[in-house]
């Protein structure tokens, strides 16, 4: 499959925005006890792109995701989301600024129904304030109706409409992964941060999720995913960031990186480097 060049994606947006950075981090550092998990990571993600963060196990990719998403505070370094400094912001604030993340192990809200999982997602719900529940029931109801309409559409798009009244914990593994993505979509992200979305799922589902991601990107959502499946990265991502040992090793397209000796040595396969060395 051929990936579309960046300029052809998201025609709805202005070119000014299209050339700006959705995400940028500089010299991010994080230590746990004596272990330096992230040791000066710097990279940027163009708005409107689909980018990947790859690297061997222990490279610090998940930690970077948690740092960017606000689940962890960096020991040092800075981060910007669409030009806004989000360094050290807690998770709920980062989410409200437009960065929505998924988790590596699907974390559905088990004892809520599938539909409820989506209904709980939108930000700034009028009905979440105690005052409004009692004194502005009309507005609450109106917003609920709006959200319900959208939620049902999103469920339909992800093929989960039939399961809408089931408890989320009753879904199969693959369905839970779809729910995770559906929930992220419902949150209307500007930047979608996916933590290994293809991990441990069957090839048919991999393709399905890949299509969902491309469809979302076409609608204007910037995507950054941590991924081990290099085929996926090659097919849907325009830009790749390689990490190793807590630092960014290189960035570029997959083709460029395959020719990069350090990346090849660190990650892309001993067999490959052995054959090029000869």
């Amino acid at each position: 499959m051929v990936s579309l060049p960046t300029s052809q994606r998201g025609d709805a947006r202005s070119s000014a925005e299209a050339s700006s950075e959705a995400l940028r981090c500089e010299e991010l550092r994080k230590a746990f006890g004596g272990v330096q998990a992230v040791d000066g990571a710097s990279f940027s993600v163009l708005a409107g792109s689909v980018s990947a963060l790859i690297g061997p196990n222990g490279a610090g990719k998940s930690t970077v995701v948690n740092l960017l998403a606000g689940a962890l505070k960096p020991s040092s370094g800075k981060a910007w989301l669409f030009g806004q400094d989000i360094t050290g912001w807690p998770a709920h604030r980062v989410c409200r600024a437009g960065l929505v993340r998924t988790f590596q192990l699907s974390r559905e809200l088990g004892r809520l129904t599938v539909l409820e999982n989506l209904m709980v997602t939108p930000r700034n719900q009028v009905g979440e304030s105690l005052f409004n529940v009692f004194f502005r029931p009309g507005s609450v109801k109106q917003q609920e109706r709006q959200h319900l309409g959208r939620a049902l559409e999103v469920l339909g798009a992800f093929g989960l409409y039939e399961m809408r009244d089931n408890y989320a914990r009753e879904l199969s593994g693959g369905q839970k992964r779809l729910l995770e993505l559906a929930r992220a979509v419902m949150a209307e992200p500007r930047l979608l941060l996916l933590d290994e979305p293809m991990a441990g799922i069957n090839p048919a589902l991999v393709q399905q999720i890949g299509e969902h991601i491309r469809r979302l990107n076409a609608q204007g959502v910037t995507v950054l995913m941590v991924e081990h499946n290099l085929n996926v990265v090659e097919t849907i991502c325009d830009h790749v960031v390689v990490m190793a040992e807590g630092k960014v090793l290189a960035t570029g397209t997959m083709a460029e990186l395959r020719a990069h000796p350090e990346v090849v040595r660190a990650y892309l396969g001993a067999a490959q480097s052995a054959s090029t060395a000869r």
Partner: protein
Amino acid sequence: MQVVYYAFTLVFFFFAYCVLNWGLNIQFGEAGILNFAYIAFVAVGAYVAGALTAGPPAPGSNESYVLGAHLPFMVALICGGLAACVLGLFAGLVVFRRLRSDYLAIVMISLSLVAYDFVTNYVPLFDGADGISGVPEPFAGVFKLNANSFIFVFDAFSALVMVVMWWAMSRITRSPLGRALRAVREDADVAKALGKNVFGLQMAAMLVGSFYAGIGGGLIIFFSGAFNTSSWTTPETFVVFAALIVGGLGNNVGAVLGSLLVPVIFVELPKFLPTVASQPGLVPEVDNMVIGILLIAVLWFRPQGVLPEPKARFDALLVERGGQW
């Protein structure tokens, strides 16, 4: 007449425990807060409501407590609820920064034990172990009541309070707020990642639940005319948890069912146990053990309780949209 008196007393405690159960349900059933100090909040409501109607302690008596006043009892009842909220606010400010449930439970149970210890020892606060007595009968100025008719009238009043509080709690649990609380309960990290202000939500649950606890406490002291430390030992918190879990966590009707548990087990059961009936001194111990064993059994065999948490349905909203999406 004794039978009527007895029956209406049971009915009162049923109403009071409904209110108490709903309070703990929003904290624990909806938001997942292990408030093991719940009974201390009930006590605050009782003491404050009682003191605010009993007036300052008479100079000659050896009673001493704070907040003596002669407020109308409805005002005092609400003040009791609000006082419990204040305690909830402080507790929340300390514990909700740490989300780990056992830490929270540890601090709450410690709070309960310390509060009990402090109130018992520091007599000027609420007359130590003796507590507040001589709380004037509500409605005394309005109706001329003897013992039986007072109970009847107060039962009717409590029923009214219960209905109002039922309506309020229903609105909350069915609203997006209730849904957000349940999300926090299921996975606080995910709730944060979805942009929810988890601290604010937990505080909301804490405050509402505390208010209910305080109102329940106020009702109890107005019914009994007195309240002392023996009414709020730690096992009492447990009874409310047991009632909720057996009746069905996260289900307001389950909470009602659970509150039938208290008068039934505590009052009726001993009559059916021959060994216990012959040793009346053992009754409270056996009652408590039965509740403990019952709770553990329910948790094992039917953890969702008699009436499980209802599934959220959006049919009403759908119908309004003409059934289309």
